[in-house]
C-alpha cells in the first residue's frame, strides 16, 4: 500500500467526503440496529427472561398466547413426562394483557403472567414467596420507577378486581408493556372469572438435555398441544414480526444504498486513476500488486468511516432516554458494521476489476 497510503493522505478531502457518506450510513444502520433491538426487547424481553426453552400451545395458535387456551387435560401428559426422570420441567402459564388503575386514578398497563408459585417460572426470591401468599401482583422493576410501591392497590379494569402489589421482580416487557406476575389462580380469575375450569395459555417447558428435547413431539401428541421453541414464540408478541421485518427492510435498503455509493465512488476514482494504474504496470507492477493497493485503500476508507459512524451511533445511543426503545449490544453493532464493510467491498468489485484490465501501454501518453 505504498501508493495507496500516500494517496489517502494527499487526497484526504476527497476521501473524507465519501468517508462522511459511508459514516452517515453506518450511523443510520447502527441507530436502526439499536432501535430494532430496543423494539425487540420491548416486545419480548419479558419472555426471553423466563427460564424456559419451549412452549406448548394450542394447535393453530400461531405463536400467540391470546389464541391458545389449554386445560388440565392438556397439562397431564406433560406433568407425567416431567416426573419420569428426564431433565424436564413443565408449568402451566397464563399470559394476558391488562390495564389497571391506581388509587390516585393513574393507569398502568401490564402483561400478566400467571403461574403456580412453586413452578420453575415463578420469580426468584421475595417474588416467589409473595405469590404463595394472599392474592396479589408482583410487578416488573420498571413499574417501580413510575411511583408504585409495595402495598399499593391496583384495580384491574374489566374484571374490576382490586389487588395489592406484593413486590417487584426482574425487569422485562412483553408486547411493549411491562410484565407482572400473579399466581395462576389469580390470573384465571381475572381472565375467565368463575368459569375458568383450570384453563391457561400454554405449557412452559424447560428441556435440560437432548433426551428431553427429543421426547417433546411424543408428549405433544399425547397432550394434544403444539410445541415450539422460545425463539419461535417471540413471533406471537403483538407487532413483533411486522416491526422486525420493517427494521430489517430499512437496514437492508441502507446497506444496499451504501454499497452503491461506495461502488460509484470507487468506480469514478478508478477511472480517474486509469493512467496511474497503467504507469504502475509499466514500472513492473503485477495485477496482484495493483489490486492489493486498490483493495487496501478501499478497506481503509470503509473500515475507518464505518467505525467512526458506528461509534457516533453508540454515543447517541447513550444519550437516548428511556422514552425510546433503544438497545445496542456489541454483537449486532459489529455484525451490522461488518456487513456494511463487506457489502461496500462487494459493491466495488466492478471498479476493482477494472484495475486488472488497464494496459500499461497507456503510460506512454500524457501525464498521470
Amino acid at each position, binding site marked *: 500500500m505504498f*501508493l495507496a497510503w500516500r494517496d489517502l493522505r494527499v487526497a484526504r478531502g476527497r476521501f473524507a467526503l465519501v468517508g462522511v457518506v459511508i459514516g452517515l450510513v453506518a450511523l443510520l444502520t447502527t441507530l436502526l440496529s439499536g432501535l430494532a433491538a430496543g423494539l425487540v426487547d420491548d416486545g419480548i424481553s419479558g419472555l426471553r427472561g423466563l427460564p424456559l426453552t419451549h412452549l406448548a400451545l394450542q394447535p393453530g395458535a400461531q405463536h400467540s398466547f391470546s389464541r391458545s387456551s389449554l386445560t388440565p387435560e392438556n397439562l397431564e401428559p406433560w406433568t407425567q413426562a416431567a416426573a419420569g426422570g428426564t431433565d424436564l420441567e413443565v408449568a402451566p402459564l397464563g399470559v394476558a394483557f391488562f390495564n389497571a388503575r391506581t388509587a390516585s386514578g393513574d393507569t398502568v398497563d401490564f402483561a400478566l403472567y400467571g403461574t403456580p408459585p412453586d413452578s420453575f417460572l415463578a420469580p426468584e426470591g421475595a417474588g416467589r414467596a409473595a405469590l404463595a401468599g394472599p392474592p396479589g401482583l408482583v410487578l416488573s422493576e420498571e413499574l417501580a420507577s413510575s411511583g408504585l410501591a409495595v402495598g399499593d392497590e391496583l384495580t384491574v379494569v374489566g374484571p374490576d378486581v382490586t389487588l395489592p402489589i406484593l413486590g417487584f421482580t426482574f425487569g422485562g416487557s412483553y408486547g411493549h408493556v411491562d410484565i407482572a406476575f400473579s399466581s395462576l389462580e389469580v390470573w384465571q380469575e381475572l381472565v375467565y372469572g368463575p368459569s375458568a375450569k383450570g384453563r391457561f395459555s400454554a405449557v412452559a417447558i424447560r428441556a435440560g438435555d437432548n433426551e428431553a428435547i427429543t421426547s417433546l413431539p411424543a408428549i405433544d401428541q399425547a397432550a394434544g398441544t403444539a410445541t415450539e421453541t422460545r425463539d419461535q414464540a417471540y413471533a406471537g408478541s403483538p407487532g413483533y414480526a411486522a416491526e422486525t421485518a420493517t427494521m430489517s427492510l430499512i437496514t437492508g435498503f441502507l446497506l444496499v444504498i451504501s454499497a452503491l455509493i461506495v461502488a460509484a465512488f470507487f468506480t469514478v476514482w478508478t477511472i480517474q486513476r486509469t493512467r496511474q494504474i497503467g504507469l504502475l504496470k*509499466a514500472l513492473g507492477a503485477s495485477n496482484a500488486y495493483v489490486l492489493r493497493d486498490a483493495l487496501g485503500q478501499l478497506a481503509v476508507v470503509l473500515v475507518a468511516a464505518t467505525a467512526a459512524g458506528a461509534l457516533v451511533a453508540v454515543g447517541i445511543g447513550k444519550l437516548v432516554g428511556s422514552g425510546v426503545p433503544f438497545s445496542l449490544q456489541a454483537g449486532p453493532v459489529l455484525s451490522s458494521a461488518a456487513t456494511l464493510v463487506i457489502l461496500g467491498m462487494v459493491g466495488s468489485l466492478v471498479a476493482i476489476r477494472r484495475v486488472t484490465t488497464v494496459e500499461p501501454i497507456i503510460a506512454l501518453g500524457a501525464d498521470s
Partner: protein
Amino acid sequence: MNLELDAVSVAVPDGDDTLTILDQASLAIPAGEVVALTGASGSGKSTLVAVAGLLRAVDSGRVVVAGTDATDLKRSARTRLRGESIGLVFQSPNLFGSLTAIEQVELVAHIGGHLDRHARRRAAELIDAVGLNHRANTRPAQLSGGERQRVGIARALMNRPAVLLADEPTAALDDAKGREIMALLVAEARSRDIATLVVTHNVDQLPAGVDRFHLESGRVEPGSARAGSTV
C-alpha cells in the same frame, strides 16, 4: 546485446484494411551504447518503444531483452522482465501526484518487493545524481518541468536496468532545459553501462557520440550522421 529487435512487425486494423506500423524493423543496442531514433510524427517511434519496453506484443519478429527472448512470454512474465530489466523515461514525466520526488524512485523498489534500507539509500543517491537533493521531499506539483523529468530519469535508473528507453524525454521542455536533460540522461546511461534508446525530434539536443537511426516506412534505417560529429 542488451536490447535486440529482430525483424519486428506490428500492424493495426484500419477500417477494412490493415495499417503496418513496424515492418521488419531491426535494431540492436549493446550495453553502454546510446542510440537515438528519429522519424516523422506517426512513423511508429512510440510503437517501437512500446515493443522494446514489452508494453505491446509483436505480430512477427523477435524481441530480446537482457538476454531473454521476450517474444512469446506471457503478460505476467513480460511485466516481471520489464520491472527487472527495463527503465522507462516518458515524454511527460508521468509522476504520481501524491509521492515526493524520492518516493517516486523508492516506489520502483517497492514494486520489486525490496524496499529496504539499501534501496532507500540508492534512491537518495539517484536523486542526488540527477541534482535534486534539495528537492527530494517535494511533490510534482511544486517541481518545474525540468525537475520532474530529472525525477523520471532517477526512477528509470532505480531497478539497475539493462535497457533504458526514453520516449521524447525533452518534448515538453524548452531547448536549453532539453539539452540539459538529454545530456544528463546520456551521461547516466553511459556511466551505468545501460543499452539506451532515445526517441527524439530534437537531434540538436543530443550530446556528441550518439548513434542516430531513422524510422521510415516502418523500418529502422541508419541516420545521416553520428550526433555531435556533423550537423
